[in-house]
């Protein structure tokens, strides 16, 4: 086991442990913080893979954006100091069952398609991961370009933004 593998196992153990804590903690704010650590660990895994752009995007979107949003909504809505009520027994059983089935499915897929495993020779093939390559691919109109999904997602986000503004807009007391 070389140093790289040690780093991988440490990162994975960190992600799994904090993920487990996130779903078992009874304080809702702590849950958000454990989720944050788990997502940061995933970003660390991307760094370990050498995918720096994805790692930075993971931090920006999930950690800096979504978790902050979650924390704000906890602050504004929940009585965040109190312990959450313990979940129903039935729900616990079903969630555990669902998690086990998901794990089994992943294992099955991995064992069946193990031919996709990265071979030593594949390491020579290094994809172009520079920012300009990603940017060109994202906006290219050629066969493997991503300009159409990019634009569709932009319109979706714009619609969501306008929807938020309309919901949040207060009408002045005078006009109806």
């Amino acid at each position: 086991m070389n140093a790289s593998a040690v780093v991988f196992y440490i990162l994975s153990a960190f992600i799994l442990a904090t993920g487990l804590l996130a779903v078992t903690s009874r304080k809702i704010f702590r849950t958000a913080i454990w989720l944050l650590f788990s997502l940061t660990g995933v970003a660390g895994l991307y760094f370990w893979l050498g995918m720096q752009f994805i790692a930075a995007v993971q931090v920006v979107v999930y950690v800096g954006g979504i978790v902050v949003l979650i924390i704000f909504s906890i602050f504004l809505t929940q009585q965040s100091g109190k312990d959450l009520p313990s979940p129903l027994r039935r729900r616990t059983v079903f969630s555990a069952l669902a998690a086990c089935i998901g794990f089994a499915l992943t294992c099955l897929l991995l064992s069946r398609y193990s031919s996709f495993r990265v071979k030593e020779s594949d390491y020579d093939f290094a994809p172009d991961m520079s920012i300009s390559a990603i940017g060109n691919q994202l906006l290219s109109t050629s066969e493997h370009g991503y300009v159409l999904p990019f634009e569709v997602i932009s319109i979706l986000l714009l619609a969501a933004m306008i929807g938020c503004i309309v919901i949040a807009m207060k009408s002045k007391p005078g006009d109806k």
Partner: protein
Amino acid sequence: MLSIENITHSIDVWLYGTFNPTAALLLESLIVGLCAITLFAVLGLVLVLMERKVSAYMQIRLGPNRVGPGGALQTVADTLKLAMKEGLTPDGADKFLFNLAPFMVIVVAMLILVPVAFAKGTQIWDINIGVLYISAVSSLSVIGILMAGWASNNKYSLLGAMRSGAQIVSYELSAGLSIISIVTLTGSLRISDIIDSQQDGWWLFKGHIPAMISFVIFIIAVTAETNRAPFDLAEAESELTAGFHTEYSGMKFALFFLAEYVNIFIVCAIAATLFLGGWMPLHIGHWTAFNHAMDYIPSSLWFIGKTFFLIFVIMWFRWTFPRLRIDQLLSLEWKYLLPLSLFNLLLMTLISIKGWHF
């Protein structure tokens, strides 16, 4: 010629010659970590002293003048005092998160240090996504503040944390857009590429008016992001006692204090890198003789000089402008700075496509 680049290179060669690669890498990481911690300690001492001296100068008084020559050892004495104090954890607090928050803040400050170029060839990791990494990691610092404010179980702390969260999340947009406007000129996110592109002049001068506008916006935005006056609503002492760190004492308080000053240093270093050429000496176009004369000043001095000049400007703000109200603060960002920086980005893109910059 003795330079930091040569010293680090010779240490690197010696380590790899003496030990096997894994041990050498570990030792290098250890040395870099020790250097970072030392830098933090020194920065804390120097910047707090500088703040007190600058504020004294602005208010026509002497400032600290008893401990050491001209009061130079005052902050060392203060640090010793803080280290002696008891680190109290309130009874009603969430003890784990309360104690975790200061470390979170300081670790985030350390992580942002990674791609900063301190001198020619002196950089911890010249990462491919340099400035994106910086803006990504700096968005984490809000988590530590929110954690501290919530875990203290104190209304003032919670209010301070909420304000700080709203403030940092909003001003990140303007700071990011100003960074992007420089990236459109350089065409690269890598810090070393950005510095190399300023070989014949700094972007502040080469990029015409839009570069100056984005420089001003960036300075305003980072002043807000580091919770400095006139945007220090997170700790507004006249309204919230001390905001999110009301309940902290001893070394835990000192870590928040240290993180604030280190963050100021880092954002000023980034501003110096993006707009004032980082360690690049003042070069003007093709004036070869002038450029050579400027090269005699070591690159580390250029970097430190520019950074400390910007730190001085930010301290100057603190003692000049009155504090904003929270609604004024948010309308300043969303109604004025954000549209301005979006428009400025378009203008900058036009300049960079047409090649109008020098």
